[in-house]
């Protein structure tokens, strides 16, 4: 079988993603135009006369036909212009660039939390399937995925902030007095370390705990489940038997042999979980006043603010495409068979 070079592979994957990207653009355009309410009526101000509204419509280009609007939109898109958010008053690009890192940081932290809890649980469960430990882990993770994130979030805030007071107030990424670190990655944890501001790191970390846990709890089940299943499969496979019969140490068998193989489906699931959480953190962002793109999109959607919704959807679509690409590449690194 022919092998392709990595750049070729990436290019090929990106090309393959074009149709769905076009699909996303069209669908999101139509979806936003179908939103009820007239943004012009809202933004012309309360006292606006019909003429004033009409004038705003014209400024916003809303009086043109959908088709015209669509081509104008595409034209702007090609020029890299995603428009201006009427709700925040900023360009959509600016909003996305400032808010995306917040969402990514939160989601990554959530996935990381889930990974740290779920994978060991899954491994333990796989080592002793059908033991009490297995059942307990299944119970816990299933309960986790059964909790609506907004409910979990509120509950955690109530318990850990309101009753116990051991976490900071749910007011976003930092407390009221801190200013964000200089922008390198947009991830406060990283940026604060880069700047060497350990205090700020702690503050950012404390603020990240509850939302990340809220999000992570939701991802425990799929990760623990896939870890357990793939570990059970791998542990029962012939090459583990062979490794045992060759007297390799249990640690070597568990980690170098079993876990690395089991990692492949886990990584796939991580990817699915990540893109799922990236969408699901909308509700978490709302609860924790997290200034991410999720809450941004909700606000825009409710206000029939087209440009941010479209920009958000596009961003997510591209994230999704790149995420899958990254996972395939990661897969290729771990599994030589995947090749390119």
């Amino acid at each position: 079988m022919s092998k392709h070079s990595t750049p070729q592979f990436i290019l090929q994957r990106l090309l393959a993603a074009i149709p769905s990207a076009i699909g996303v653009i069209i669908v999101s355009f139509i979806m936003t135009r179908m939103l009820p309410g007239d943004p012009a009526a809202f933004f012309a101000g309360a006292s606006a006369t019909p003429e004033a509204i009409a004038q705003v419509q014209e400024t916003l280009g809303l009086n043109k036909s959908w088709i015209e609007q669509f081509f104008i939109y595409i034209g702007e898109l090609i020029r890299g212009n995603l428009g201006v958010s009427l709700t925040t008053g900023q360009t959509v690009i600016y909003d996305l660039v400032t808010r995306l890192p917040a969402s990514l940081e939160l989601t990554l932290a959530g996935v990381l939390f889930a990974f740290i809890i779920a994978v060991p649980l899954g491994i333990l469960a796989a080592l002793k399937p059908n033991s009490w430990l297995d059942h307990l882990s299944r119970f816990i993770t299933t309960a986790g995925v059964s909790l609506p994130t907004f409910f979990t979030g509120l509950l955690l805030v109530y318990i850990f902030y309101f009753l116990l007071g051991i976490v900071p107030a749910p007011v976003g990424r930092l407390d009221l007095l801190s200013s964000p670190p200089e922008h390198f990655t947009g991830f406060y944890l990283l940026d604060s370390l880069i700047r060497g501001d350990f205090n700020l790191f702690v503050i950012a970390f404390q603020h990240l705990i509850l939302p990340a846990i809220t999000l992570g709890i939701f991802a425990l089940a799929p990760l623990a489940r896939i870890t357990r299943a793939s570990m059970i499969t791998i542990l029962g496979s012939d090459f583990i038997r062979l490794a045992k019969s060759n007297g390799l140490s249990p640690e070597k068998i568990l980690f170098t042999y079993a876990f690395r193989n089991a990692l492949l489906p886990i990584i796939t699931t991580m990817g699915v979980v990540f893109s799922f959480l990236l969408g699901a953190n909308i509700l978490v962002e709302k609860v924790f006043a997290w200034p991410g793109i999720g809450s941004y999109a909700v606000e825009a959607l409710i206000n029939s603010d087209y440009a941010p919704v479209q920009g958000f959807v596009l961003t997510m679509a591209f994230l999704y495409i790149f995420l899958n690409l990254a996972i395939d590449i990661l897969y290729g690194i771990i599994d030589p068979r995947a090749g390119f």
Partner: protein
Amino acid sequence: MKEMQPKTTQETLLAVDRLSVEFATRRGTVRALENVSFDLKAGEIVGIVGESGSGKSVLAFATMGILDRAGKITSGRILFDNIDLLQIKRSQLRQKRGKELSMIFQNPRAALNPIRKIGRQIEDVLQAHANLPPKQRRERVLELLSLVRISDPSRRYNAYPYELSGGMCQRVTIALALACSPRLAIADEPTTGLDVTTQAAVMDLIVDLAAQTHMATLLITHDLELAAQYCDRLVVMHAGHIVETAKTSDLFQHPRHPYTAKLIAATPDPEKDLAHLIPIPGNLPDLRGELPFCRFRDRCDRASSQCDTVPLERKLVGNNHQVACHNHF
């Protein structure tokens, strides 16, 4: 049939003594092995033959101490070099595995870690047992690869299992098994799934290397003909029992157990035509629940009431020829 110089010494290397293994399953306990005893002398090649479900592989796994979680050894001893493998510590057992006794699997491709270079896999074994500096370890790996007749070892060192053919993979697992020059290798259906022509080459390789290193070999196979070709002695299993053991030629010329006789009669060989191919009636009994003392009873045309009521004893019926049957030939 064949005349061979006895190349075995008389010391017993492996003695399995009244070994019983049970499996817990959803629908009850499977008594997979019951009072199984046999021994193996240093340098000897012994074949364990039987149809699927007869417990051959369980026996191999039990000996290696790598039974599934569901499986449990309920009684018996496994004496390797007069040490009971069931009594020693797990770490001690681990020390012996791969070093003194090792195993060759069926389906070699599945038996290799799919995402680790084969050279590294062999090195892992060396690392576990031989105190060699990395450079020598690598040399030893290359040496082993050429020993199992893999051409261009330094290139193959970096190959992944998926890049090799089935036959090649089996050579690698043989190299793995031989890495520390064990005294016993258990080959579990080593040729199943390989092409006919490759099968022969692999078997030749195993017996050649066994002879070279004076390694005892336990060949587990369902192929009577194959066992006959390569083994000094044969152990015939049926439904978790050993029904007969004998020197290969004795067994073929004078099978004493009805099952052995029928098995031979049912096996196609170049001299038989279809009319002489005699099927064995019935199926293997369900190993759950109540069983008669003789598990072949329901398929046997020599069965008597004794078979239900009197426990089976192994009888010596000739030179090194044992049979477990009340009404043997």
